[in-house]
C-alpha cells in the first residue's frame, strides 16, 4: 500500500527527538495546499502515537503508517481546513 502512495512533499526527521518531528511536520503540513500528501520519516518510536494525534488535532488524514523498527514512515493528506492548534 505504502509504495503506491504518491506524495507531494517528503520530510526526513531522522535523528530528531520528540517533539521536533511533530513540530516540523506541522510546519510543512501548514504550508501544503488541501489534498496534498506529506511523506514523513521519523526515528522516534513516540511518533507512532504523536503523528496520528497531530493529524487528528489538525484535521488531516493519516493515509498509512509503517513501523520498520528503527524507522517509522507516515503518509499524511492535508485536510480541507486549518484547525486551531499547531499552525
Amino acid at each position: 500500500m505504502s509504495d503506491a502512495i504518491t506524495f507531494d512533499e517528503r520530510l526526513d526527521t531522522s535523528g530528531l527527538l520528540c517533539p521536533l518531528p511533530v513540530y516540523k511536520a506541522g510546519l510543512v503540513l501548514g504550508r501544503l495546499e488541501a489534498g496534498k500528501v506529506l511523506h514523513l520519516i521519523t526515528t522516534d518510536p513516540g511518533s507512532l502515537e504523536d503523528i496520528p494525534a497531530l493529524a487528528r488535532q489538525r484535521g488531516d488524514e493519516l493515509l498509512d503508517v509503517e513501523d520498520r523498527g528503527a524507522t517509522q514512515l507516515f503518509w499524511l493528506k492535508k485536510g480541507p481546513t486549518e484547525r486551531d492548534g499547531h499552525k
Partner: protein
Amino acid sequence: MTTFLKRQQQLGTDRHVRRYDDIRQLLPDVDQPTPIVRLNRVAPELDLYLKLEWLNPFGSIKDRTASYLLAGLARRSSLQHKQLVEASSGNTAIALAALAALEGLPITITIPDGVPEEKRIVLRMLGAEVWETPDDLCPVDNPRDGAIALARSIAQSAGGEDYIWPDQYSSPDNVKAHYETTGPEIWRQTEGQIRTFVAGFGTCGTITGVGRFLKEQDRSIRVVAVEPQKGHRPPGLKSFAEAKEPDILDRSVIDEVVTVDDDLAYGMTKRLYREEGLIVGPSTGAIVAAATQPDTSDVPAPGLTVGISPDSGFKYASFFIDHLGDEGLPRI
C-alpha cells in the same frame, strides 16, 4: 575644526553620572540597584513598594537571569561556534538575544502560545530565530510545556552538539542571579526592615533566590508566591496545575501561595497605570493584587512589603485591548 572635534581623551564609565562604555554595565547590583517605589494610592493602608525591574537595560528582571546564565555557561564550556537555544515567554529571550548579539552568538528561541506579537518582533529585530510553539505541541504528552520540550529536543537531537541550552528552568545560575543581586538590593533598600516579599511563579528563580537570601537574613520574613489561575493569559507566570514545576523551585522558602485570576490581575494593572502612573506588565498587576488582598487568615499583618514588577506594559498593548472595552475612545 579638526582640533575642535578631536577628543583629548576618551571618557570612561562613571556610574555616578550614569555614563557607561557598554550597555551591559547597566546590569544591576547592590551598588546600582533597580529602584523600589512606594504605592501610595492603590493600597494606602499598606507599606507596599514595587521593585521596578523594567528599568533594567533590556527591559525586564530577566536581564539578571540571562547574564548569569551566559556567564555560567562560559565558565563551564566555550561558547565559540555554538548556537544558543532557549524556551522563553519573551523576557529571558529578549535579554539572552541582546547579550548574544553583543557576543556574536546566534540564538534560537522557542516561544509558547499567548506571547504578544510585540515580543516576537523585538526578538527578530535582535537577530533571534523565533520558533512559535503551541503549548500542546506534544499532543499525547502534556502538560502544556511545548516550548521547553522543543528547546530540549533541539539541543539533544542529531546536530544538538552545535547548540547550548541555558535552560533557565533548571539552571542554578537563575537562582544565583537573584540570590546575589535582587535579594541583597532589596535588603539594603529597605534597610533590613522588609517583612514580606511577593513575587510570581514563573521559572521560580526570583522567588527562590530572593526568598532564600531574605530567609538567611531573617527567617520571620514572609515570602509569598503568586500563581495565576489555570488557563491564565499573563505571560511569564505559570500555573503549576497545568505546567511542570521548575527544578529550581525551592518551596521551603515560600510561606504562602496566592492564586490570582486574570480579571483581578488586569484590573489591578489598570489601577497601577491610572492611580500610580506605573506603566507595568500584567504580571505586576497579579503580584500587587495578591499583595493587597484582604487578610482573611490568621497570618500576621504584612508590614513593609516589596513586590516585584518584572516588566513594563509596552509589550502588552495587544493584551490590554481585551480589558479596555470602549474606555478611552471618543464619546460622541
